[in-house]
């Protein structure tokens, strides 16, 4: 529909590039269209992130390509990510994955072709998670967690999609009762409000909007945040909910020492992998060098842009965009995850929830 | 009113349908045993129930045949579905319908082979000429109209058109 404007801008950019003698990267995306595949339905958390980037990224990439976001939904992200993985590795197709989709690819879920080893992150955004308890747990402090009587019901959607909350429960050693069949986290929150579920983990923005009012009226209490893990393996508070203890801190208060063992190692891997990536935009790492350089340059310019920052503040709800060195850290964390911990995670998922994995 | 032939044909076809459903139910029971518990129980119960109702219906039909009672079927089956006229219930009507279904399948095959645009360009005149002997000006008009519609849907609603295996370039 707007055929002329981008062309004009491209022209201007090209002339500018020529006159300033910018590197050849400026030409790679000239007149091209970048397609960002979003393998989730429109309107979700990962989708809004993908669309935010799609709206702003194009004008900052040298060559001013048109960037379009495209939802390819189906099978919990499998259809779209498989479509992406079969696409041409020319840097013109990108993927917006959620943290859980990354983890699925990482653990090797049935039917998923995506291999993170072939990919390079372009930009990402984090999102924390917080666990709450219903008042029918009948405790007054989160530190009494281990003394809860009765059925500790936990709603299960797709087990891998809840992995950070499950690993946290494993770390505490709580005997919980899984309730399968929920369609999504929104459904589990409603059942939690009814008192059908006793523990419930929500993303921090959803927690702040929907669970905090319940805490105020006394039907729920905050238990712990999943939080983040710094480079030395220490817990870091969730920036969007800095007052809530993280799970390892709560563990330390209860037991007088930091958690240890395989569950804790798994927690360290999972917390960052899931939470650092509400959305990650990936490109193939064997896409042309100039394409990847142009994308990185585009992201660097985009995050400095005031208009982008204003739009991002509304959508990211208290978190910062991850670009540049932060991305290298994500990739490094993926590579550093110990094999035996991944095996432990797979075994735990298989034993408790009968999830099968295809090893790569 | 229906003729006896039509009634008999309809009864046979219904028996066939119920038998097919029963076979599917058996297949479900057969294959579901390999599933995880939480994925197995519901299909098993539903399939057994299906089998039960199929047996009930087949029994009823057999009884009816033994009695030779056709009176109750004279009105046809009065279900809450869009009615079909008697003449279409006979063998000729069925054949005619299947013929049209074959045309539709042909359209589908063309779409898969050549993509939506070319398939429409070929299918519409073919159907209207070979099957209905219509005026070529009408089919031309319909093709042009459809292409315009597809173009508009693609440009303004962001719809995507099925591409074919063979990519033949088109106007849009």
């Amino acid at each position: 529909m707007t055929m002329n404007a981008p062309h004009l801008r491209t022209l201007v950019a090209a002339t500018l590039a020529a006159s300033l003698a910018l590197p050849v990267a400026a030409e790679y995306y000239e007149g091209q269209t970048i397609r960002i595949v979003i393998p989730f339905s429109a309107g979700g958390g990962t989708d809004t992130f993908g669309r935010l980037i799609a709206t702003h990224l194009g004008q900052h990439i040298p060559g001013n390509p048109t960037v379009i976001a495209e939802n390819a939904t189906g099978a919990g992200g499998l259809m779209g990510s498989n479509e992406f993985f079969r696409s041409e590795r020319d840097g013109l197709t990108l993927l917006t994955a959620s943290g859980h989709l990354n983890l699925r690819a990482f653990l090797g879920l049935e039917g998923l072709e995506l291999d993170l080893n072939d990919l390079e992150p372009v930009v990402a955004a984090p999102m924390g998670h917080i666990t709450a308890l219903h008042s029918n747990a009948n405790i007054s402090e989160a530190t009494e967690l281990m003394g809860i009587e009765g059925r500790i019901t936990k709603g299960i959607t797709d087990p891998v999609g809840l992995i950070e909350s499950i690993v946290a429960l494993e770390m505490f050693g709580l005997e919980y009762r899984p309730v399968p069949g929920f369609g999504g986290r929104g459904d589990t929150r409603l059942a939690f409000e009814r008192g059908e579920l006793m523990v419930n983990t929500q993303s921090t923005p959803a927690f702040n909007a929907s669970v905090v009012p319940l805490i105020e009226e006394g039907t729920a209490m905050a238990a712990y945040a999943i939080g983040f893990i710094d480079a030395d393996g220490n817990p870091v508070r969730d920036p969007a909910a800095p007052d809530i203890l993280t799970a390892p801190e709560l563990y330390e208060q209860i037991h007088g020492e930091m958690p240890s063992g395989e569950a804790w190692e798994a927690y360290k891997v999972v917390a960052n992998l899931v939470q650092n990536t509400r959305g990650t935009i990936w490109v193939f790492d064997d896409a042309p060098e100039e394409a990847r350089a142009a994308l990185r340059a585009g992201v660097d310019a985009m995050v400095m842009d005031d208009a982008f920052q204003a739009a991002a503040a509304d959508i990211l709800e208290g978190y910062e965009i991850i670009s540049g060195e932060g991305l290298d850290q994500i990739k490094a964390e993926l590579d550093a995850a110990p094999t035996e911990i991944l095996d432990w995670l797979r075994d735990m998922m298989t034993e408790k929830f009968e999830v099968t994995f295809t090893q790569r | 009113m229906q003729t006896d032939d039509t009634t008999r044909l309809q009864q046979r076809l219904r028996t066939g349908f119920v038998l097919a459903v029963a076979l599917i139910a058996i297949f479900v029971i057969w294959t579901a045993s390999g599933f995880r518990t939480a994925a197995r129980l519901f299909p098993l119960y539903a399939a057994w129930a299906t089998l039960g109702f199929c047996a009930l219906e087949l029994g009823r039909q057999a009884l009816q045949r033994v009695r030779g009672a056709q009176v109750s079927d004279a009105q046809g089956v009065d279900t809450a579905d869009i009615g079909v006229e008697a003449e279409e219930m006979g063998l000729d009507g069925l054949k005619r319908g299947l013929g049209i279904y074959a045309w539709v399948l042909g359209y589908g095959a063309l779409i898969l082979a050549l993509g939506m645009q070319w398939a429409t360009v070929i299918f519409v005149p073919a159907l209207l000429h070979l099957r209905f002997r219509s005026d070529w000006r009408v089919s031309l008009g319909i093709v042009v109209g459809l292409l315009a519609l597809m173009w508009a849907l693609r440009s303004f609603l962001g719809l995507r058109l099925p591409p074919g295996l063979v990519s033949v370039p088109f106007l849009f």
Partner: protein
Amino acid sequence: MWDSMIAGFMMLMDPFRMSMLMLGVAIGILVGILPGLGGLMGMALVLPFLFGMDPYAGIAILIGIAAAVPSADTFPSVLMGIPGSSGSQATVMDGYPMARKGEAARALGAAFSASMIGGVLGALALTALVPFARPIVLMFGAPELLMLTILGLSMVGVLSGNRPVLGIIAACVGLLLGMVGGAPAAPEYRWAYGVVYLFDGFSLVIVALGLFALPEIIDLLAKGGSIARRQPGLGTGWMDGVRDTLSNKWLVVRHSVIGVTVGAIPGMGSSIIDWLNYGYVVTRAKNKSQFGKGDVRGVIAPEAANNAREGGVLMPTLLFGVPGSSAMALFLGALLIFGIQPGPSLLRDDLDLVFVIIWSLAIANIFGTLICLMLSRPISRLTFVPFRYIAPVVLCIVILGAWQETRHLGDLLTLAAFGLLGWTMKRIGMPRPPLLVGFILSALVERYLWMSYSIYDWEWVTRPLVMVIAALCVVLVLGGTVMKARVARGAVERAATEGTRHAD
């Protein structure tokens, strides 16, 4: 509250926001008329443009779409027997036979006037119930939802006329087909055999198009002629339809209330609402002989309900952030784009916004149905055009609509397969509506069964609301059986009189 109501109205009266609302209505009518496309498609279309837009204008355009779709999707349902979107499946049952009798304009008039009243009642109900909605919604736990799905299944008896066993078998086929793909309670892809397309199971839109659209296209083409088998007589215009609605005003009110209520219960799946209402109107009617053959009440009931539904599904969406339908899931996402977090706090902190939504809903409903009413006269002339000229167009649009689901080869194959199934069933007198009901409810029954059992063991059976709904199911099934007995007796008597006549 009154302040907010007026403030909300004033905010919406801004010319830009009103024009966005009208744009939404226009898009909604367009995607509603095209079979296979629905509110979800329309909203997804405008979503990219919402970034950076004035939030109230953005909400207006989305609500405009949501409100107009259930009105406009009546066109294909009535005129061609093709469900325009998942909300107008049951309208086919009586609206289409009316069109075939040459009364398309009347059916449309009745449908749109019922839609308008239903939609406005839905908006009113949303206003009135906002303070009480939370306790009501919280009353429905997993066991109660399970009973509601069973209530839906017990409609099957009513929907299968004088051969309940055939109907039940059809419903069983629906249940079995609904099990293909990911199981709700276990990580298992049933009967998918590694085909990723089947992991999600069959899409309801494609199943409905296959079962109803393809058979109609095939049969009409095979028979030749036009959709309407009679030329229009006098007094078959849309004003008659409006009069029909007015003389059935309590029916409209009753079904609007049902539409709002069922829509407000999250997790029930709003696609079942029109079948529930159709089944209910048939059960309650004294003279049932014309249902399925063109009884205008069979048009009014589902149409009033499906517009009122939008008011209902907004309640859980706004109050709990739990989408009541897939289109509402998208609406929820759009609210997040504007930095609005739905939830109980919305009512406390941003009541003005809630009223902008309610006003948009009411105004969009009125304008949407008015536009549809105006379009109904010219569009219903299509039913007199030789069908062979319409068929290629409809076929092309149906295929395009089905293809938008996942844009996968499987979409076309599924459409073809369900087309054959639907055509076969139609030709041999197997009722199709029960199959659709079984298909929609299959995953829900299984899901709530596991959830109820996991949470309460078998104690769930003793919950009071569970017993109330169970009693309702019994009444419904008995009501259906009594009706059938009456119909059967009528048939026997008729046969007897015919017999004596022959004897003479």
